[in-house]
């Protein structure tokens, strides 16, 4: 394995995995506490339209997808405020419409599109220098903003009125959150794919929530778990010759199940102890 680490493609895969693992699982804490998992899923699926535009026009697909994802994030915020429809209904429109449009646009490109599968299910081992640069740019912009506004976002989630009275511009903050979420989701597409994006966005944060004793602990634990899942999934993928995206998703899922079983078992023992 150590010799394998000298391989440039594996170095890029590791760098992309660590960057995406950190950013998605940290952002995932907000996704879990704001209950906006469907938002990330919808933006990921809808960004296929951006990938398709990139493939058809010959532009780098990931930056185009990032532009489309952020555009959809902004439009959703506006639409949610102006429409009388609940957000899950709006997302139920966005996901199939843009994904369908993406597949239709791809069908215009001549010949077989092998890249499509890598965007749908991830292909971390195929991350090129261009994609790594796009991922790094997104994460390096998103990370300081998330760190800076972490407390305000928690406040706006927990008590929006209280946050407003404290002088926080809640509406602007939520626009920023949705834009960052859209950008980070698109950055993670190469790692886990459009279909499995919630593996990194939701599972590490949800696992952290089960054991954390404070929101601060959740923010510390989720990125550790996220990066751990990426590295373990990547190792399994390399060692067992398995597809990388599904390996990362299954690793994260197994970790979630193990922690859930441990926490449930402990709770059951505590209840039993209290009865006797």
């Amino acid at each position, binding site marked *: 394995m150590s010799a394998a680490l000298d391989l440039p493609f594996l170095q890029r895969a590791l760098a992309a995995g660590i960057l995406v693992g950190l950013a998605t699982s940290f952002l995932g804490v907000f996704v879990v*506490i704001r*209950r906006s998992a469907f938002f990330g899923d919808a933006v990921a699926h809808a960004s296929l339209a951006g990938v398709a535009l990139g493939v058809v026009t010959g532009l780098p697909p990931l930056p185009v997808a990032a532009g489309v994802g952020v555009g959809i994030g902004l439009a959703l915020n506006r639409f949610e405020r102006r429409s009388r429809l609940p957000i899950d209904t709006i997302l139920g429109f966005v996901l199939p419409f843009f994904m369908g449009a993406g597949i239709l646009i791809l069908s215009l490109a001549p010949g077989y599109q092998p890249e499509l599968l890598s965007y749908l299910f991830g292909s971390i081992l195929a991350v090129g220098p261009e994609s790594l640069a796009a991922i790094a740019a997104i994460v390096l912009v998103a990370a300081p903003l998330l760190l*800076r506004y972490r*407390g305000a976002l*928690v*406040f706006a989630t*927990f*008590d929006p*009125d*209280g*946050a*407003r*009275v*404290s*002088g926080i511009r809640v509406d602007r903050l939520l626009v920023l959150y949705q834009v960052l979420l859209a950008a980070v989701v698109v950055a993670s597409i190469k790692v886990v794919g459009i279909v499995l994006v919630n593996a990194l966005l939701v599972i590490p944060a949800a696992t952290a*929530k089960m054991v*954390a*004793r*404070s*929101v*601060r*602990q*959740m923010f510390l634990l989720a990125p550790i778990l996220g990066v751990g899942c990426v590295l373990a999934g990547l190792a399994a993928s390399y060692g067992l010759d398995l597809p990388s995206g599904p390996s990362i998703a299954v690793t994260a899922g197994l970790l979630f199940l193990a922690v859930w079983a441990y926490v449930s078992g402990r709770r059951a023992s505590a209840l039993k102890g209290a009865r006797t």
Partner: protein
Amino acid sequence: MHALEVSDLTVRFEGQELPAVASVSFTLEEGTIAVLIGPNGSGKSTVLKAILGLVPYEGTVRVFGGPVGASYPRIGYVPQRLAFDQTLPLTAREAIRLPLPRRPREEDEDSFRHVTRILGIEPILDRPLGALSGGQWKRVLLARALVTRPRLLLLDEPEAGIDVTGEETIYGFLEHLVAEERITALVCSHELELVTEYADVVLCLNRRLLGSGAPEKVLTPESLSSLFGATPALYLHHHEAHRHGAAPRGSLL
């Protein structure tokens, strides 16, 4: 300068024919406790939210002579209830510190220590909010509202969901704050006993302001009957009887 000046306040909600509150005007001087009373649906919470700038309104609201936004975060707000995920591991300490700056100054830390000590919540600071009782939860919300050292405090039914001892703790603390730190408090309440005991000014609201003034002048059987549509039923608050050895005052059922 008035602590709070509300002039011709009208709030209309979309799709509703009648305004939720209409032409409400009053002023509060610094260092007073004012209590807004009225039946359910009379617009008490709406008036508070309009003052805070949380709902659109017509009319004028001035806090210490300026627009309300200029006074953030020197306005503290304690909501009646807060719908949040009970499984969220947000601790009382984290909840109280939410309004503080990212890098708190020494005076913020002093304020945090002061409010948590005086409200008696130091032992529960590291407990998640979902594990707190109604009274503990209310004290945490009050601490959060006070940690920024507000000059104006708005409380929406602070006694809702807590027992008699909890009510006394909160109102007693409020009285202390007003006396010692010259805070101005506007409280929505159903508790006539507490109103008569602690309020300097009572505002009777039923979509419109029907009367205002000192409790003994405003809380007459006639005015209460006109406000609530009938003479309110009363129940005994034992602690009051024990404390003063006198006949208890009433609370709305």
